[in-house]
């Protein structure tokens, strides 16, 4: 797979047409399992985002062995934009992380990490600090930053280079509620509680509008709480090999048992709407 670009070269009065095939890139990004490094147990996914991202990477390598296939740990907004913006011709992007209607939460990190050429100690950072460019901002990419944080910024998607993507990219957000939710009647809305009806107000929609080509997909499920869950085998053990997650209500309908047999693609909504 690849994109063929045609150039006309003129050397010493002679014009030659040259076609150049640029390899396409399949990128997988994953955040930390925790909501923030000190958060409680309920939403801590442990290493599951890492494991499912690696499974997706293996699928990409098998399907498109001649493409550039990359998988990266991405615990901050700096990593998110830095990785995407420094790649070319991204044709498929899968993102495994926490999320909500207005953004993705990459979780932050424990230990030391280089952020913007500086070493940052995640164990000493206040990940709940709501200041602009502080802990909470660092671990999230959001479209209404000034509503949630003490910030003058609105959407952080201004930092995203759409030129990093191919002409027809497919982007998949597997985390919770990034493309909105379904109401009790199954209608696609933005959010049940607080009630926000228009799903065009979601992060997935704004991401699709920003890149302006191809499709963005996000898992959408029912209910005010909940979001996405990992698939399981017959014993309820989480398994990752198909690189897919499921809406929580669908998983719960099977008591979280043997959900690997359920096809997730039925529950993906396509953006822009």
């Amino acid at each position: 797979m690849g994109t063929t670009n045609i150039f006309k070269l003129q050397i010493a009065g002679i014009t030659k047409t040259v076609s150049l095939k640029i390899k396409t890139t399949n990128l997988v990004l994953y955040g930390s399992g925790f909501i923030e490094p000190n958060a409680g147990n309920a939403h801590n996914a442990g290493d599951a985002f890492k494991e499912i991202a690696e499974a997706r990477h293996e699928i990409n390598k098998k399907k498109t062995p001649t493409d550039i296939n990359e998988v990266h740990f991405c615990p901050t907004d700096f990593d998110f934009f830095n990785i995407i913006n420094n790649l070319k011709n991204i044709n498929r992007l899968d993102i495994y992380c926490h999320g909500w209607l207005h953004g993705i939460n990459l979780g932050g990190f424990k230990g030391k990490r280089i952020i913007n050429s500086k070493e940052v100690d995640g164990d000493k950072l206040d990940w709940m600090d709501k200041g602009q460019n502080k802990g909470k901002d660092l671990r999230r990419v959001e479209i209404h930053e000034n509503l949630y944080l003490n910030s003058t910024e609105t959407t952080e998607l201004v930092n995203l280079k759409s030129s990093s993507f191919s002409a027809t990219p497919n982007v998949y957000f597997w985390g919770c509620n990034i493309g909105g939710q379904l109401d009790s009647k199954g209608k696609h809305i933005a959010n049940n509680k607080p009630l926000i009806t228009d799903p065009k107000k979601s992060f997935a929609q704004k991401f699709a509008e920003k890149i302006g080509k191809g499709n963005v997909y996000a898992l959408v499920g029912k209910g005010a709480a909940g979001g996405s869950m990992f698939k399981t085998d017959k014993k309820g053990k989480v398994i990752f090999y198909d690189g897919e997650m499921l809406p929580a209500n669908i998983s719960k309908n099977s008591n979280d048992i043997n959900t690997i047999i359920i096809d997730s693609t039925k529950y993906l909504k396509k953006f822009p709407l």
Partner: protein
Amino acid sequence: MKKYRLLYFLVLISFSCFVNKRLSQEYSDKEVIENLKHVTSFPDDYFFPKGDSICEKILKRGKSIIPLLIAKIDDTSNSDYIYAGVLQYKVGDIAINLIDNLYDNSELPLRKLLVDEFFKKNTDDYQYIMLYDFVFFNNTEKENLENRKRFKKIISKWYNERIK
């Protein structure tokens, strides 16, 4: 003599104020706890950083309210909280979630306490939220209740050892 009488009187008033304050605090703590069943949003990183108004009131009390929350762990009356639109939480689930919220994950090893008590097998490949439901939801009502009672004892023991 007059001086002593005045002193006695002042001490009596102070003591009575102290007792009244304690009683009213205890009463209001209990009153707040009675509203557990009406919780519909836990604290999150997004729309409800402090949870809904009931959560906020309870969590404002800090760790002093934990014994009252522990007492509710085996309360199986339905709450208004419905997970993913399909799973109706019991009052006991609200209590456990709020206890979890009152500690950092390094302080309260909730997953470990659950696993040590209920699972003999290796649970590394299981999500906490699934293990939780296996213990408290996915059995007969009687078994679910027995498990809640067992877990109440475990949390109670953990808490009492901590405050010693």
